[in-house]
């Protein structure tokens, strides 16, 4: 698996990145995040390979790079979804330790490293802040109906899909993008978002649907996600 495919990076960023190796030092590169900034670190395929290295051989250096990239983001996510500074720090550490412990189970066919880490952070947040459980399906359950696409094809599809998704989100109209952000980062139901924005619930739902339609349309080439 030596083919280098950049995921989620516009063509000009790929050019910018040419020649960078994974061992690049980016300690000085932790300024303010900006969607369009050529960071040299938010290349999804790099993160994917780092996560694989942690899963395959407990590579602590690969893990440190993942940590330096994701820990501040996960902490900001925890702070935004309800935690104070200390809780956010604790939940971030729990998340990153889970990343180390569960890395073997990361399946690149199921999406980008950021997607996988987001899901871990989200579940720990629900455990910590809500008096509810998060029900999830179990792929090892005999009653589970397995995927109908060969795994290798699926991974190729997801690599394309990650890139398409990145562009599609950047291209969303502001009102749709901000609704998605509220939904993912403020832990609010669609009706709470509607109240807060003083919009009818139907409008919130139809904007969400529009946004999701656009994202899915962008992905239509990379697999059946209809």
């Amino acid at each position, binding site marked *: 698996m030596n083919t280098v495919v950049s995921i989620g990076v516009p063509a000009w960023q790929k050019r910018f990145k040419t020649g960078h190796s994974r061992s690049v030092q980016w300690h000085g590169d932790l300024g*303010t995040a900006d969607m369009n900034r050529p960071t040299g670190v938010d290349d999804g395929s790099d993160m994917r390979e780092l996560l694989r290295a942690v899963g395959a051989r407990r590579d602590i250096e690969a893990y440190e790079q993942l940590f330096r990239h994701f820990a501040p983001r996960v902490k900001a996510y925890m702070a935004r979804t309800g935690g104070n500074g200390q809780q956010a720090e604790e939940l971030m550490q729990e998340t990153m330790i889970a990343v180390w412990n569960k890395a073997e189970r990361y399946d690149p066919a199921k999406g980008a490293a950021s997607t996988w880490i*987001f899901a871990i952070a989200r579940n720990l947040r629900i455990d910590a802040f809500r008096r509810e459980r998060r029900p999830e399906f*179990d792929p090892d359950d005999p009653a589970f*109906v397995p995927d109908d696409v060969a795994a290798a094809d699926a991974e190729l599809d997801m690599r394309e899909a990650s890139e398409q998704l990145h562009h599609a989100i950047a291209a969303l109209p502001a009102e749709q993008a901000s609704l998605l952000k509220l939904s993912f980062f403020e832990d609010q139901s669609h009706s709470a978002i509607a109240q807060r924005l003083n919009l009818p619930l139907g409008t919130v739902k139809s904007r969400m649907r529009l946004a999701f339609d656009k994202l899915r349309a962008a992905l239509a080439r990379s697999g059946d996600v209809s």
Partner: protein
Amino acid sequence: MTISHHISDDLLLSYAAGSLAEGWSIAVATHLALCPGCRRRLMVAEGVGGELLETMDEDASIEQSWASVRGRLQQQEPGAPAVAGTSGRSGGLPEPLRSYVGGDFDNLKWRPLGRGAYQIPIKTGDRETMVRLLRIPAGKPVPEHSHGGRELTLVLAGSFHDGTGLFARGDLEDADASLTHQPVATPEADCICLAVTDAPLKFRSWIVRAIQPLLGI
């Protein structure tokens, strides 16, 4: 087996974001266990979360956190091996629902609901939903029930039809208060389905309870 009624976008996005209440989430997650197509849609929705995570503001001071986490990793005991063995079978009740009801189809503790129908109430931590497993006798209609809001019905065995179509294993019906329907189990077998509804408003005062029908709440 082809599933023809799937999870709506708003439920899927809320589930991916982690803001969907537990009751609705049981129906969503159990449908996902049966539907590879919706799992691909979930990957897209969770991908949105991943992309948005990438855009979070960064906090530059993580040296201390890194030192602390590295230390914790070194002190970690090797993890206990995962507990193997789940009692499920192909075609049976899927997880996560099976754990919620505490068994598979052949060892469920049904409670009579009248007219040959049975139910198993399911406890959740949320206050927003009411969740139950229903068994409707073959060829019979679902007992009359009213709900002021949303109702999700996931078929697990047998099938039912109503004015809008036929629902078989894995199909998820998403009905709001505007839909008036009379589901009827098909004649071949009892229909077992998971029903999730908005919890009805409960009032302490008997006066309010008494006039609830008049108020339409």
